[in-house]
């Protein structure tokens, strides 16, 4: 029981440690900052979680985010419509991920290779489209990343909606259950009649919608359409998912775990900045935490497998004795 909630215990302990280290940590302004800073990468992390649970991966998230973001910005500059620009961003993300899905599900391309190709293509298209130049003077477009509704940052509202959506589809839908089955053992999933190709398509399309939305929020937050923005964001997303207990082997992971993982990283970054910890040391600490999370994941999985085999052996022994 305690093991199941380890990640949340770590988060709570870290929260109180941060509060002890620097009293500014607990201020409303700072907590709001952390949430806003985390919104983009956490939304990406939810997409990454869905894919990893299903045994897939998306290395193109940062590049597709940039492409979707600049298209959304340009759409807003041309039409002045917030809704239309939001839709364009989301559709752009979905279109790129539809290609990922075709490559992975139909052509059986390893997700690593398929999304690596998309990473290069999407960045190239974003740079071609903008000729490498930032799009400036975004006007009211910044409301997505900088606005508030009743004091709550708009980006955080999006984050909450996406978190609930991810939790719901993973926990309470047939698609969610089939995803765990596909990621856990694809051959067994096929044998049990699950439409694996369909599951992969849905997973990539949801991920694409999240990436597109993240693109809109990112560009809006920094008040510029940057075709070279968000480089490496796919790794921030993977970090949050892995720290949150999503297993790279597939079939394991939760939305709440990913949220906790993202906040652990966010708290750490925030407290290190508040305490003005040296840049180089920050990188060492971040790297060490990822390594620890993965070691812990492998260690607990090993114990679970060992425990399971142990039970099987005991059962066999008992059967032999009985016979």
């Amino acid at each position, binding site marked *: 029981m305690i093991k199941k909630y380890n990640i949340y215990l770590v988060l709570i302990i870290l929260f109180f440690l941060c509060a002890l280290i*620097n009293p*500014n*940590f607990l*201020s409303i*302004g*700072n907590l709001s*900052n952390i949430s*806003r*800073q985390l919104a983009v990468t956490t939304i990406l992390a939810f997409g990454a979680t869905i894919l990893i649970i299903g045994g897939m991966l998306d290395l193109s998230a940062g590049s597709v985010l940039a492409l979707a973001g600049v298209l959304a910005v340009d759409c807003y500059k041309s039409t002045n419509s917030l809704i239309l620009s939001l839709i364009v961003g989301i559709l752009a993300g979905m279109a790129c991920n539809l290609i990922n899905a075709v490559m992975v599900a139909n052509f059986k391309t390893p997700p690593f290779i398929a999304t690596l190709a998309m990473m290069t293509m999407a*960045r190239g298209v974003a*740079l071609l489209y903008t*000729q*490498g*130049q*930032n799009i*400036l*003077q975004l006007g009211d477009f910044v409301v997505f990343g900088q606005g508030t509704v009743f004091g709550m940052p708009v980006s955080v509202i999006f984050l909450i909606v996406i978190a609930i959506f991810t939790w719901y589809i993973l926990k309470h839908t047939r698609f969610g259950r089939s995803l765990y089955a596909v990621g856990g053992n694809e051959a067994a999933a096929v044998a049990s009649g699950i439409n694996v190709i369909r599951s992969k398509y849905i997973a990539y399309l949801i991920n694409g919608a999240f990436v597109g939305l993240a693109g809109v929020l*990112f560009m809006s*937050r*920094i*008040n*510029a359409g*940057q*075709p*070279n*923005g*968000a*480089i490496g964001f796919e790794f921030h997303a993977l970090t949050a998912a892995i720290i949150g207990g999503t297993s790279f082997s597939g079939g394991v992971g939760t939305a709440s775990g990913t949220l906790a993982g993202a906040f652990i990283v966010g708290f750490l*970054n*925030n407290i290190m*900045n*508040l*305490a*003005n910890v040296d*840049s*180089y040391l*920050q990188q060492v600490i971040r790297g060490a935490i990822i390594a620890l999370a993965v070691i812990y994941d492998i260690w607990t999985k090993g114990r679970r497998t060992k425990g399971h085999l142990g039970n099987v052996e005991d059962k066999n022994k008992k059967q032999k004795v009985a016979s």
Partner: protein
Amino acid sequence: MKKISHVLVALLLSVALLAGCGGGSGGSAQPSAPPADSSSDSAPSAAPEDAGEQTFRVAYIARAQADSFAAWLANAVREEADKYPNISVDIMDGEASDDKVNSLIENSITNRYDLIIVQPNNGEAQRPYVEQIIAAGIFAITTNARIEGIAGGSSVDADPYMQAAVNAVAALEQVPENANVVVLNGPPGNFHADQRRLSWQTEFFEKRSDVTIVGEQIANWNKDEAMAFMEDWIQANDRIDAIISMNDNMAAGALEAVKDNPKFADILAYGVDGTAEAILLIQEGKMTSTCLQSAYDLAELLLETSNKLLTGQETEINTDIGNPLVTIDNVEQYIEMHKRAGAL
């Protein structure tokens, strides 16, 4: 059936490859001229006497088209090249990778370009490859940043130390006594990032011991990273009097974090590059100053230098563009410059 599909895929890839290779930029459709002196084994030679009639092929290897300044410079070089009917420029993208830049240099040597301009990703990593250009009898120019001490090589650059220094000298008077400041650095090891930081240290911090650095981080030239740092710093510090940034993009990110906060309404902010965004911020009174590193000036000087080398007027040129300080007093002329370029 499988064999046919293999043949089709192979054909498709070949067509794509040919289409890609044939689509060079910079009007390189002109037949290439033979190398100025392919027999030379050390220093590049001057062009033959009929230089006026031939088209010289120039390879421009950009550090990374994804870097907004590098893209601006590459576009400016392409535009400037149109003014020289005797020069055709092919733009190549180093993709922020030493390996890629080095490979592009090697390929350009193999393709016998008449002159190769290299915008290094990392000067020391590219040094032996630029030396190979000279050894192959081809003219070489390094730019933004120059690689120092290459015999027979030329360079066109801005002085990163001076770019920061013009800001630092102004800041000596502007930053209030006992001020709290934050510092945003570029990637460690980058020549411009290191030189600009050194300049601030020598020209400002060593002369203003009353000033306290309450936050200093590497934001890798990125606006979003700088913004996140600034959001955290303003939580930890009630008073921040100035943002000292090694480029404009990071300064703009830090300003984005405080733009609606009345506590920081009078904050000073310094950058380098003179990007369109920074120029607008100066016009709005939000940013204090920047030093213009004009891609147009660099491109103009690069093509002028190339022409002089290729037509035999000179054999080696090392030159710098100026370091104009952009403030509220002279910002309008730079707004016009960016408008003309279509950046605004």
